[in-house]
């Protein structure tokens, strides 16, 4: 694996996370519990899609085979996606959607913070822009998780169920493989494991305030960020997302 091959993989991981999560969040459009949330969810999705354009755009550039961000987003099949399993999980209720968002935002902000000092200036530049948005997302999702966790009895139960359901998908964020090692050696991206202490501290703080209990298990589902084994949900998501591009490959939109 050359540096650029590893970098391409890394960039796909970044871009596929924001692409797939952005898609999931956009599914809420027009169906949120309050108008303010409709706006906020659309805004989050919008930011994530914008970040996707940057990450996948750069991925295509690094690959150098003429694929642009759209080509990568709309013309790969499930196994070529490199997103965390977490972000492809179905929305469930609003609580689960926001819990997923919080679990992602917490990791995303920490990671983007580190990437701002990447040895690869193009990575640092995107991280700089994205980290502002991610910080805002985190503020919002953390607040909402606290409100709903420490709201009514029902909302507490729903949020605990959401956390229990999603928890096994958290571990994948911190497992390194050859790509990560290459990125770390080049100083392009941090070793994933090195983010965990900060992540755990942040989660501990917020979830405590939310009166929620972090499951006592370190089991982690894997297979998203290396594409080895996605969930069945991703394929269904792609049928929607890629429909037009697949049906009309020669069209320009």
């Amino acid at each position, binding site marked *: 694996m050359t540096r650029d091959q590893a970098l391409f993989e890394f960039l796909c991981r970044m871009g596929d996370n924001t*692409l797939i999560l952005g*898609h999931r969040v*956009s*599914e809420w*459009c*027009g*169906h*949120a*519990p*309050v*108008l*303010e*949330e*409709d*706006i906020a969810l*659309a*805004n989050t*999705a*919008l930011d994530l*899609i*914008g970040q*996707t*354009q940057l990450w*996948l755009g750069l991925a295509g550039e690094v690959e150098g085979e003429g694929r642009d*961000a*759209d080509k990568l*987003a*709309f013309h790969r099949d499930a196994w070529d996606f490199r997103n965390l399993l977490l972000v492809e999980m179905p929305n469930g*209720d*609003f*609580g689960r959607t926001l819990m997923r968002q919080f679990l992602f935002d917490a990791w995303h902000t920490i990671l983007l913070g580190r990437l701002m000092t990447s040895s690869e200036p193009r990575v640092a530049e995107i991280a700089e822009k994205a980290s502002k948005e991610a910080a805002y997302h985190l503020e919002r999702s953390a607040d909402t998780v*606290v*409100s*709903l966790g*420490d*709201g*009514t009895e*029902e*909302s507490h139960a*729903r949020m605990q169920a959401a956390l229990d359901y999603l928890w096994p998908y958290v571990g994948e964020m911190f497992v390194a493989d050859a790509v990560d090692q290459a990125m770390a050696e080049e100083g392009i991206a941090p070793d994933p494991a090195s983010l965990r202490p900060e992540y755990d501290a942040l989660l501990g703080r917020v979830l405590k305030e939310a009166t929620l209990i972090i499951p006592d298990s370190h089991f982690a589902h894997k297979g998203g960020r290396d594409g080895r084994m996605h969930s069945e949900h991703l394929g269904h998501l792609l049928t*929607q*997302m890629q*429909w*037009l*591009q697949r049906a*009309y490959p*020669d*069209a*320009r*939109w």
Partner: protein
Amino acid sequence: MTEEERRFQARVDANEKIEPKDWMPEDYRKTLIRQIGQHAHSEIVGQLPEGNWITRAPTLERKAILLAKVQDEAGHGLYLYCAAETLGVSRDELTEQLLSGKMKYSSIFNYPTLTWADMGAVGWLVDGAAIMNQVPLQRTSFGPYSRAMIRICKEESFHQRQGYDIMMKMAQGTPAQKKMAQDALNRFWYPSLMMFGPSDKDSVHSAQSMAWKIKMNTNDELRQKFVDQTVPQADYLGLTVPDDHLTWNEERGHYDFSEPDWSEFYDVLKGNGPCNVDRLTARREAWAEGQWVRDAMLAHARKKAATKVAAE
């Protein structure tokens, strides 16, 4: 007319803005609540036909633009509910009237969006017609409504341009895309004309609303203006307006055109549009499934307030 009513009408005639705390006739208030409420509901329900294509948008750029647009619509809903609230009706009350079917939203959103070209047609025609309705309302007599319209119009014209841009790409695209574009125009043309409401001669409240400057132009005036503006745009796109009687009337300086099928309009109004049931069901379910969230947010806010008080 009472003395108060006379003074009120004089202010309206003088183009002074009426503010929430000013005296106003009860019917003025009621009519405004109905009108602003329906407009707000239309923004909310209007998210759905476009939301229908967000997950299938063909490029990242188009997806982002559509998301931004739908977000704007929710924002417009918010401005308008706020304007209505200054008249003494809460957002929740208005929402319940929407969900129970007591209040209406624009009938246009009871038509389905069936291809990507519909995203173009909605922006070009539906937002186009909406702007035609809304631009004069920037000068409406009720201050909060007028100010909301000013903000809204700015964004809507942006949306209309984006819609036209989609149509352009489709109309200049592959044969399949051209077909989608023409088909979208065919389906949305008459429903767009209906957006201005029935002919003025059949419109009950028009005269009073115009005197109050809640309504600034007659339905027929606006419809004519819309046709005159839109036909050359369709020509430019190379698309055919689905009206055999459409001709330029040199004498009038306007296009002559066919009236929409008003029996269809009343059918849709009665709840028989292609999507009435789906749209209301979507909103009802969103509201019902969001109940626990709204309850929890309220409960949490109370807890926090109580803690704060206790700490003081």
